């Protein structure tokens, strides 16, 4: 028996409902407006009044409209077909909606229930299973999509029967499970899960122990992110947050990518819609779209669904993680989500925290970041969700609640800087302010040294140190003048510029430079450090500048050339000539 109610008050998308029976916090309900049903979520209950945030425009709603409560929280539908789909924040399939405009009250099914999938059982009758255990798999694109015991199943079950290999749609009962109490339950290929609850069902969640390549040098080389790790990219507008995120999405060494466009520009999402089906995944050669799910709640779409969108995205990630996959979640931007929380808290007349954000903002953010991680599944496999969020600090000032709260929650900090962006030094990640806490993890350090080269981490620290020293001497040169400092200061400055131009800066729009595999990063960093160690003897600072500019230019041309191509080797020879002739 569903609870019902009637609308008694409306302020923007906050609607007060006088309810009958019982409602629960975060329960989903539908407000009837004429022949439309508008989805809403309970966010506060006082006496017989439930405050619901409506996920759509409330234009035309009136006092006395009827409301129907659904008895469950906001849920994601999980099953084969999620990849290469595009959803709004409530997981409505955007592709199957009618018309050019988003019509209010139009909800579409997330998955195709008619499509046939080739199912292969992985378990057999008589096996004992628990939630998230693999029953079988279907091929989704090139990925083995596991059909699992639904996450909501508590306790252990015995498989009573499992369907034979064959072509089935997702509604087909693929297995019958018998509970400890002897009750038979049917399992089909899809399940639902409340988005605000973290998916469990794994053995343990260890500390991240290996890195995830992004192809972006100033991340992989300078401040690597761990697989299952968390990072965030704050930056004022115009500093290249989105370009950087798209670059990571295109090149990230993950099997599944979920992009949550949360309160950002529609044209940026269109770019993904258009380019991802055409771009190749550098790791498999397949189309990028085949491994991507897009959750899109752009800035002009209803505000309340923005908050839902990041949770929906995270739930989909956790679902694929339970299949033992490497998942990367990118959310652009978490500030918009925080602003949605602020708007709602404001309408509910809650006492505001800093900058009028709700007081529990920090807790909400850390809770969300904590859902990322690498996990060991019960069957011995590992799966991971790596999460990188962007933050759009008001006025570019990092001392604001969302940035500060996120800094506490995320382990990598990629600080985009206006000054670098103004100088067109992209990606505009400040090499000194940014950090990766993972470089302090002994397991990550030994992983890097094993995988790349024995002295890799040492080299990274050395490069960072040169950049830092370069910044210091640049300040002194500015104060004292070119002639007022010894030539060694100029050399140090130009060494840092060398690292800046060749390693840190990267052209996201050049086919070759855009993605740098780890072996190439190793090669270039080693070469650059060798040049930094080279003893030049310059008679004056202008010769020093000219020489370094020449070397920088050659190295940049190398960055633009295919590794070890004739061109590449030719530039290398020119550099070797310079080094050999100037001992």
């Amino acid at each position, binding site marked *: 028996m569903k609870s019902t109610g009637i609308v*008694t*008050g*409306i*302020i923007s998308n906050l609607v*007060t409902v006088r309810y009958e029976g019982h409602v629960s916090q975060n329960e989903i309900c539908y407000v009837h407006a004429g022949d439309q049903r508008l989805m809403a979520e309970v966010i506060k209950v006082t006496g017989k009044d439930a405050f619901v945030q409506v996920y759509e*425009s*409330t*234009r*035309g*709603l*009136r*006092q*006395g409209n009827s409301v129907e409560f659904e008895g469950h929280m906001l849920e994601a539908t999980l099953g084969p077909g999620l990849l290469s789909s*595009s959803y709004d924040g409530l997981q409505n399939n*955007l*592709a199957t*909606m009618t*018309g*050019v*405009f*988003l019509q209010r009250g139009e909800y579409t099914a997330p998955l195709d229930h008619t499509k046939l999938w080739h199912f292969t059982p992985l378990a057999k009758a008589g096996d004992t299973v628990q939630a998230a255990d693999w029953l079988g798999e279907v091929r989704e694109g090139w990925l083995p999509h596991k059909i699992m015991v639904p996450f909501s199943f508590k306790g252990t079950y015995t498989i009573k029967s499992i369907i034979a290999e064959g072509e089935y749609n997702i509604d087909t009962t693929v297995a019958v499970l018998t509970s400890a109490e002897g009750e038979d339950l049917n399992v089909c290929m899809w399940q639902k899960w409340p988005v605000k609850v973290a998916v469990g069902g794994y053995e343990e969640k260890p500390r991240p122990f290996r890195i995830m390549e992004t192809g972006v040098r100033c991340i992989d080389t300078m401040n690597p992110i761990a697989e299952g790790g968390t990072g965030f990219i704050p930056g004022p*507008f*115009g500093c290249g947050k989105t370009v950087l995120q798209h670059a990571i999405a295109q090149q990230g060494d993950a099997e599944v990518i979920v992009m949550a466009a949360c*309160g950002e*520009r*529609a*044209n940026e*999402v*269109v*770019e993904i*819609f258009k380019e991802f089906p055409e771009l190749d995944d550098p790791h498999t050669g397949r189309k990028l779209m085949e491994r991507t799910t897009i959750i*899109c709640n*752009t*800035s*002009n779409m209803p*505000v309340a669904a923005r908050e839902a969108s990041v949770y929906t995205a995270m739930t989909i990630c956790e679902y694929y993680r339970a299949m033992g996959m490497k998942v990367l979640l990118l959310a652009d*931007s978490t500030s918009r989500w925080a*602003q949605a929380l*602020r*708007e709602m808290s*404001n*309408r509910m007349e809650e006492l505001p925290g800093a*900058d*009028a954000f709700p007081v529990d903002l920090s807790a909400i953010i850390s809770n969300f970041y904590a859902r990322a991680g690498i996990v060991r599944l019960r069957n011995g496999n590992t799966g991971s969700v790596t999460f990188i969020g962007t933050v759009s600090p*008001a*006025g*570019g000032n990092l001392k604001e609640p969302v940035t500060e709260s996120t800094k506490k929650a995320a382990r990598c900090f990629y600080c985009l800087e206006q000054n670098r962006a*103004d100088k*067109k030094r992209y990606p505009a990640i400040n090499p000194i302010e940014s950090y990766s806490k993972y470089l302090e993890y002994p397991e990550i350090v030994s992983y890097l040294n094993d995988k790349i080269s024995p002295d890799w981490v040492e080299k990274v620290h050395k490069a960072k140190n040169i950049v830092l020293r370069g910044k210091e001497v640049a300040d002194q040169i500015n104060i004292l*003048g*070119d*002639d007022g400092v010894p030539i060694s200061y100029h050399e140090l400055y130009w060494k840092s510029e060398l690292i800046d131009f060749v390693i840190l800066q990267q052209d996201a*729009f050049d086919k070759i430079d855009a993605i740098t595999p780890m072996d190439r990063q190793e090669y270039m960093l080693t070469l650059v450090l060798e040049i930094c160690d080279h003893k030049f003897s310059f008679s004056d600072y*202008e010769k020093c*500048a000219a020489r370094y*500019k*020449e070397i920088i*230019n050659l190295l*940049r041309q190398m960055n*633009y050339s295919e590794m070890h191509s004739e061109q590449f080797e030719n530039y290398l020879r020119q550099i070797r000539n310079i080094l050999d002739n100037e001992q």
Partner: protein
Amino acid sequence: MNSSRAFQRIYTRLESITKATVSLRAQGVSNDELATVAGRLAQVVKIKGELVTLQVFSGTEGIPTDAEVYFFGEPPTLNVSDALSGRFFNAYGEPIDGGPAVEGEKRQIGGPSVNPFKRKQPSELIPTGIAGIDLNNTLVSGQKIPFFADPDQPYNQVMAMVALRADVDKIILGGMGLSNDDYLYFRHAFEEAGALDKIISFVNTTDQPPVERLLIPDMALTAAEYFAVDRNEKVLVLLTDMTLYADALSIVSNRMDQIPSKDSMPGSLYSDLAKIYEKAVQLPEGGSITIIAVTTLNDGDITHAIPDNTGYITEGQLYLRLDTDTGKVIIDPFRSLSRLKQLVQNKKTREDHSQVMNASVRLYADAQNAKTKLENGFDLSDYDLRCLDYAKEYASRILSIDVNLSITEMLDTAWEIFAKYFSPAETGIKQAILDKYMKKN
């Protein structure tokens, strides 16, 4: 706005009156619905039980507690048809040019947004002849971009110039808090260009109530959607000044006792602005809406909530500045940005476009550094001196907004200036492009 309905609900007892809102007990009222209070247009903004709060657009001065309140039963609308062309309207969509009311289909303003999945990627260049835009910050149809300008800068003139040079089917002006002088300037500029028949204006001038401004963008964009969606036309919408629009938002939220966030702006400022700017779209059938707006700044402060939120929404921003060497107004090459430029650069323009753009700006930046050195009394190197000469020529021959060149001419001029002052390596341009375009001295 003429809403003649056979049945209208009338109330005559106001419970409370503030500077911008009135509240009364009424039944069956719907959210966002329009009403008149003592003959003034108002809109429902809050319903609490039977207590309904209305925002009175022209202010509540002189409204008595026994004012008659009529509810229209629908949100604000605009009659749309081809007859809109060439007309001037006020914030309510009523003609102010002495002409007759427009016949056409009645549409609710502020309607739903385009399904992002159904949008097309913007890919058509809108040339303006201004290098600060075409070369450095190329404008693309379906884009939204504001001028961030100080009040003393000639932003309305530049915007009118851009609009009249741009190759579009319709230009829709949304003027918010436009001074009467500027309103007449636009009218005159449009008439002079002989472009009146492709222009539609919705204007709220400074002498009119500020809250009325809140209707202007939605009116202008409803008209724009008619031409872009129904007529598949390329529409350019000019919105000036969005800062005054945001100020009106803060007045209303203040009167409704909402807790202000940064700079006493409402917490929903981002969403409120996004709803407007995101109407910019490239439609699948060929029509498009491009928005050029003006956001005036307080002494260049872009960290204020209004420009800050705008910057996060729009696809770039343009700054005007005076180049002190040449005394010309230019579009600031450092801070200005068009986020969509890479969709057309080197694709709809010559292959060297983006490299030339980056190199010319980088060298211009080096010139600024040299200037700083000079000001601080340091000796300049040979490179510094060449940069300074380059900067002067770059500003006067390419950047200045009174220069009108095609993009290919801009590129050729840039190469010519590069060759005059720099060696190929100093430009930092990719070798293949250098080989093809850099003339040997």
